[in-house]
């Protein structure tokens, strides 16, 4: 699967990994990766180190994830290790001011 989520209860993290393209074709898998997880108090990590590119529909999906994180009282949401291309897209959309980015 190109989207995986892994619950790491020791560190209190839910890590969602996106591999390859991150665009509209992923919206269902992306939503499934977090919607049934108990995440209150957890750190939500969106690991993009294996994603090749993202487009604006992926930005929309991130906003949905952020909304979900807030509703479910997750501790925080971070985007981890985006490639330079993805980081640029995030910056252009000012998402770096919206979601924490760890390089």
């Amino acid at each position, binding site marked *: 699967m190109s989207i*995986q989520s*892994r619950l*790491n209860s020791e560190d209190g993290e839910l*890590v969602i*990994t996106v*591999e*390859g*393209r991150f*665009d*509209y*074709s992923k*919206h*269902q898998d992306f*939503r499934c990766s977090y919607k049934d997880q108990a995440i209150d108090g957890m750190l939500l990590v969106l*690991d993009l*180190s*294996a994603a*090749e*590119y*993202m*487009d*604006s*529909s992926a*930005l*929309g*999906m991130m*906003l*949905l994830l952020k*909304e*979900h994180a807030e509703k479910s009282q997750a501790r925080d949401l971070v985007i*981890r*290790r985006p*490639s*330079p*291309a*993805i980081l*640029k*897209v995030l910056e*252009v*959309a*000012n998402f770096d001011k*919206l979601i924490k980015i760890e390089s």
Partner: protein
Amino acid sequence: MEPNVLSFLERPAKGVALVVDDTKINRTLLCRVLVQMGYDVLEAENGLVAVEMFAAQTVDIVFMDVMMPELDGFAATRQIKTLAGERFVPVLFVTSLNEVEALVSCIACGGDDILFKPVNQSVLKAKALGFERTRRLHNELAELHKQMQQDERMAQRVFSGMIASSPHALADINFSIKSAAIFSGDVVFTEYSPNGDQHILLGDFTGHGLQAAIASTPVAELFHGLTRRGFSAKQIIRRINKRLHQVLPIHMFMACTMVVISRNTNMLRVFNAGMPDAWLFENGQVSQRFAAESIALGISREISIEFNQVSVNKQQHLLLFSDGVVEAVNEQEHAFGEERLLACLNGGEDLANLIPAIEQSLAQFCEDVPQADDQSLVHVPITLSNNSPPPKHSEPEVLDLDDWQWQMTLQGRSLAKASPVSLMMPVLEELGIGETNSGLLAAVVSDLFSNALEHGLLELDSSVKQDELGFAHYYQLREQALNELTKAKIHIKLEFTKLPEPGFSVELSHNGKGFEPESIDEPGSGDLSGRGIQLVQALCSSVAYFDEGKRVVAQFRLDDHS
């Protein structure tokens, strides 16, 4: 005698013949025949003199008596053969002995043939000429063999310089390759990516020796070059597979394990194509095996490349090995096997010397039995550190390209099937556009395509995407509408031009309804839609619409982003 037999015997002989006999008359008679045949002759009256003469000058054939004072024919022959070394100098015994044991001794001491006294002239000539033939063949072979070894040593020096990994990456792994020949068919490469990931590749080519080694040059080039330029492991494997598929003959391929260690995020990713399981172990126990999930590289043009991803901690270690290790055999033809390799993990003690320990265990098991295959081991301590900053490569993107164009048209249901971005990415990769520029171009094309498809052709309304349900609903509508398309078309053209600045012109056109780009509102920070055009505008130096929005042309400059 038949004419052709006669003409064979009349062929002139060449070279120096040494005649060894303690009876002068025997020597004289034999020498006369040999001179007549064309030989220059030397005479020695016993074995000792014969050895001295042989050492002092070049001799091409020896006729040896058996019983002589000082040194007999057997002992002299042994010494002469030792002195001759790799050079083939036939020694023919000339004897009146007739006991089986003595005749066997003539050959056992290194002699090549026997002539019986009294010597028949025709037999003598025939044997001498026959050995002439053998001698020529032998010397040619020896010469060729020497030449080949020189070539191999030379190539090996050049070659090892060409495929070397950088020292700082090599310092983070332990490895050993034991070759079955001068060249190894096994290769180990490692390099750091600009994002700090370490890439490690253990490859095993079919066969071993020069033919296997030669193919590793393009693999080394691609592995090191692309890793330094920030290509993902998956892209690198895809490129290596393609190249090997092009260059290797059908029966040759490369099994390999590709490893990515992200020390910043404690992640390990492994892709195994036809190698033995890679072991992740801790305290002497294998906690996870990464089995081969793909065929070896170079067999098929396209392969599915899925990396297995696990999180790791710094107590863990990774062991990669080629099948030559577990299949190494001892004198009884028993294989070394996994059990013995597992035992080397030694409960996790002294892992700094893991590879020497395995090598020692292998040596004890196999003793001196020559092995048919190369044996390679790679030991990677995970020892994660967040402290050391990843080495940065500042290699500029190589763009020694001339202009090119790529275009495609998708119609009807093929619009639902194919993503133009997925089709475009391998093209960009093939032409050497780096990961960052490819990723940004992908975003541009993806958004322009979505706009053309969703608004131009499907006439969907983005305002549906107001919340989570709306978002899902929108894509459901998109799916439905796509299935009903038959005549709708989108044409995509990607044009690379080098001058005045290297960049792309991206053009998309469709045959649907036009839309007013200006009518798309700026999104609020929480809006789920409306970012597409904005994003494209921000990434491109210019975006222009034509034909009521049915055609859009965006200019993308490469230099802006590197």
